[in-house]
């Protein structure tokens, strides 16, 4: 049985090793390789690329990207929670309709969704044209090609990542605990703050992880909606691979990005397990 099963699984396991494990190891190795004066890769190992990351220029970009990711995560939480709450209060039938409508735009390519905002927000765009026709403004507002636009694009694109897990944990919520709080005279706000929110923490953490990881490596939105100053770590990595042709440095940056993302996931999981433990107690 085991032997037969081994044959069954050989090809998929081999595939994942060749196309996932081996490339991952190659990136890590490349990030330590020395680079010659002509940009060629030498067979020597060095820490110089990681040292170069400590340069204020790159630390600044890394920090900006992390701050952006944190802000996007918090905004998704604040904006997405009430929506998830509303969906969880609908009948089964309507829940499905709402979920489908939330997931639908989410399944469409990020590039197209960012482009759709460009049509709305650019100087000759729908919003500026409408405002000018109404006489509310005389000059087009600079709605696009700045950090605010990047923030909008990312929150817009990643919101469903928060709504879905929060909805699932709200669905599993034991309503009797909420009724008990009301019976004890809690106001709706207090009941929410002391009962609903703590019990749905696992969903919040899953959603936060998904949003954070996706926004940390994002390069499409800053490129389409951002200005010259909006480059995030994803754009710098992309640039190292395509224009600057410094693969070892780009690899080092992507290793750091991936480690930070995985560390965040690990932290969230620990918090998740602690929250789960409290719920049972």
């Amino acid at each position, binding site marked *: *049985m085991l032997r*037969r*099963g081994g044959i*069954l*699984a050989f090809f*998929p*396991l081999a*595939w*994942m090793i060749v*196309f*996932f*494990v081996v*490339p*991952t190891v*190659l*990136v890590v190795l490349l990030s330590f390789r020395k680079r010659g004066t002509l940009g060629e890769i030498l067979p020597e190992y060095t820490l110089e690329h990681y040292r170069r990351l400590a340069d204020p220029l790159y630390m600044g970009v890394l920090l900006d990207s992390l701050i952006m990711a944190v802000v996007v995560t918090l905004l998704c939480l604040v*904006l997405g929670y*009430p*929506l998830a*709450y*509303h969906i969880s209060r609908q009948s089964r039938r309507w829940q499905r309709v*709402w979920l489908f409508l*939330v997931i*639908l*735009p989410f399944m*469409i*390519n990020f*590039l*197209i*969704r*960012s*482009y759709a*905002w*460009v*049509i709305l927000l*650019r100087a*000759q*765009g*729908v919003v500026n*044209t409408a405002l000018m026709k109404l006489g509310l403004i005389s000059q087009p507002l600079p709605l696009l090609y700045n950090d605010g636009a990047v923030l909008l694009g990312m929150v*817009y694109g990643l*919101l469903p990542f928060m709504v879905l897990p929060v909805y699932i944990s709200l669905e599993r919520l034991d309503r009797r605990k909420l009724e008990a709080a009301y019976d004890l005279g809690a106001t*709706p706000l207090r009941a929410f703050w002391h009962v609903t929110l703590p019990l749905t923490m696992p969903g919040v953490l899953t959603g936060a992880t998904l949003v954070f*990881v996706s926004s*940390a*490596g994002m*390069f*499409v939105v800053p*490129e389409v909606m951002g200005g010259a100053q909006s480059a995030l770590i*994803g754009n710098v990595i*992309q640039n190292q*691979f395509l224009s600057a042709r410094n*693969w070892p440095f*780009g*690899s080092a940056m*992507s290793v750091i*990005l*991936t480690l930070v*993302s995985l560390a965040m*996931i690990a932290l969230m999981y620990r918090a998740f397990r602690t929250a789960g433990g409290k719920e049972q107690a």
Partner: protein
Amino acid sequence: MGRNVYRRAVAVYSAAILAVLHAPLVVLIAYSFNDSRINAAWSGFTWKWYVSLFGNERVLEALGNSLYIAAMSTVIAALLGVPAAVWLHRRRQRALWSGLFYLPQLMPDIFMGLALLILFSRLEIPLGKWTVIAAHVTFCIPVVVLFVLARLSGIGRELEEAAYDLGATPRQTFFRVTLPLLLPAIVSAMLLSFTMSLDDFVITFFVAGPESTTLPLYIYGLVKRGVSPEVNALSALMVAVTILLLAVAELVRRRGETPARAVQPKRKET
């Protein structure tokens, strides 16, 4: 009384968010039918941008590439993913091996893209359709494994055991009992994989060669040059295809749920 006020506020808010989620896409599609080149001014309905798309050889080539890559990736991912899920399901300790299928989903897309680019350049494989297909298969396999594993734990072992008791060989049991039960999960995983392959930009961006431009890559090139009604039309087509695929996947999934439920009451009788 207080609770109702809050609830109504949340309902209004939720409808507003839903509107914001869909408005940009509705505007995008609406302006793909606009007669004027300037997006903001509406000057009448036209099909001409769609007509010009289908007269554009580069668009047709990108469309052909996208469909070919999505079809190949989906089929290969299913052929590899289904045996992997069956094997994982039979194992007692699967934490280590299942990590091989879950971990890629936790990696940032950009990392997967450049890692595969490095692999292909080290192996001196020229970038083209097959490097893109290999990359897409790698992110589609986890989807198939996830869907099929979920279905396998849903159907239980009773039917397989019954088949064995009636003298079926393992091969007969798999092809006549297990596989038909898994079919809805496989089909919806394949439809989702197809959608993901068709829509992928980041990973494809790194591993595509000059001859393997897909639709998202082509759109990227156009978007960098600015807004134009052709991009609207092309984007609108992709949105339509995505919606269609998702709707079919959902229908298949729902139809698939019914036989599994029909099996459950019988289980209690035995």
